[in-house]
């Protein structure tokens, strides 16, 4: 008969009426995020970072700004620069993760959140203080060592800098002779404190 397929279509719609809606009512409910999600706030471990600026070099958009000065500490183990400026412009970032892919020391990770909206455009730049003070919930993107551990970005406790590196990489900044790692390293005046 002519209208039989139309009647089948009506039945399909009617069965969907009885089904639970597929919607997730944000912000009361959140969609489950996977550990590899490339989040907006970056996770940076200062203790691992040497200031090599590979991330800045590899970023396709050129939004990472790194200004360093020689710190002349621990010259025998290979130097580490003193980082004065480490800005990531969130307003132009496309969260491709190439900076994370480029970092040889596993110091930079993608974050795990996405609610970084600000009211002013100038607030959309992540400065080095924000990177220092943020809670460390790195995403497991391009870091397979984090997937082996029992770690989920939204749920587990923040990770410390010793736990996030690849196996075989034993470079621990802390063991360098007399190096201070607190905020006093950022100002030029404090100079070469031993």
């Amino acid at each position, binding site marked *: 008969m002519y209208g039989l397929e139309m009647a089948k279509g009506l039945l399909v719609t009617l069965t969907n009426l009885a*089904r639970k809606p597929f919607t997730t009512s944000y912000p009361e409910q959140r969609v489950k995020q996977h550990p590899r999600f490339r989040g907006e706030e970056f996770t940076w471990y200062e203790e691992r970072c040497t200031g090599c600026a590979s991330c800045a070099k590899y970023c396709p958009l050129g939004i990472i700004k790194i200004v360093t000065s020689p710190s002349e500490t621990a010259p025998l183990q290979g130097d580490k620069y003193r980082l004065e400026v480490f800005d990531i412009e969130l307003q132009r970032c496309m969260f491709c993760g190439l900076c994370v892919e480029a970092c040889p020391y596993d110091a930079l990770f993608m974050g795990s959140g996405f609610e970084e909206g600000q009211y002013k455009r100038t607030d959309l730049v992540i400065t080095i203080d924000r990177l220092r003070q943020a809670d460390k919930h790195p995403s497991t993107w391009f870091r397979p060592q984090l997937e082996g551990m029992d770690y989920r970005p939204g749920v587990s406790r923040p990770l410390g800098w010793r736990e996030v590196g690849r196996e075989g990489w034993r470079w621990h900044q802390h063991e360098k002779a007399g190096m201070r790692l607190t905020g006093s390293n950022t100002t030029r005046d404090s100079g070469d404190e031993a």
Partner: protein
Amino acid sequence: MRCITTPENMLSPEGAFGGNPLFYWIYGLAAHLVPCWLAYVIAGLVIMLILINAVLLGAAIVSWGERRLLGRFQNRVGPNRWGPFGALQPIADLTKLITKEDIIPYGADRLAFTAVPVIMVSSLLVATAVIPFAKDVALVDLNVGVLFILAVSSLTSIAIFTAGWASNNRYALFGAGRAVAVLISYEVPVVLSLLGVVVVAGSMSLGDIVVAQAVPFFLVQPLAFFVFLAGMSAELNRTPFDVAEAESEIIAGYHTEYSGIKFALIQAAEFGGALFVSGLIATLFLAGWAGPVADWLGWLWFLIKTFIGIFLFVWIRSTFPRLRLDQIMAVCWKFLMPLSIINLAAVVLEVYFLRDASGTLSTSDLWIMAGINMVVAVVSIAFFGRIIRQKIRNSSRTMTASAPMVRGVPTIEVG
């Protein structure tokens, strides 16, 4: 009450205007204070105010209900931010529309442009005056109720065409032209199907039609029900017949240029129209306020049946794509009109042979009619469905021959 003196007075309960208890109560109250004619006017105004509020509020509730139902058909939630279950969404919409700028396009015909929403809403409100919401509760129970409804609801087509022309906009004119073609064509099957109802019920008054439905008319004459549903879908410009406001093709059709409160009124007329037609379906085909438990619960049964009508409209809207204009015309003239004529012929013959000496039909007669008409319905829908499928297919095929060839491009052989 002191104003009505003799039974021949038109206003008495036995008179031509029937008995609306609320009307007479207010009339009686007011008649103590003011002259009779003023009391009559006041009583009428109060009832009209109640009715207007009810219809417009109903339109708002239908708009909310349609969006939520449509959402559930599409496996998602409808509006749920304003109020519990999004029930205050129409108020949010109304507030937004009222505070918008009222734009009248350059070169538009101001009077006609402004008059259109007024005509649409007022024709709707006037038409709802005769629908019985419960036993003896209608603003006025005209003895030519069906004719009155058909006449008043035809004003919508004039309003739509005026909107299209007065907007000074090509898209609006497209939509209005299509709308007029559809609306005036679909009057014919609708009127013929209603004639079938009137013949079986024996009167054009809506109250009498409800009383005459010992067996609901959608069983007694399923063809008329089907034709009326399809025809009124087209009259309301609802999918699958909504060429007049096809959003994906001509943005918004005849109401493209309307903004602000005018647009709100047009939307109210549209959703109110859906409510009104559902009420009509409930009255004419589903036995109106008649229900099992008690007579004073009539309003509840009426509401439930109206909801069935609205549910049918939304269900069909959410499932089917829309038809093209020439296909809509084909469906009207080659499918629905023969069906309605067959229905009318069958019903007239049955009533002629089955009625008893005084001209009434008993319940068993109605069941016999239901049986015969069901068979007639299935056979004729199958038959005419087959014809229309061929006609529509053929019409597409002839267009292929007239498509122009590309100018002067050399072609290569297929590998």
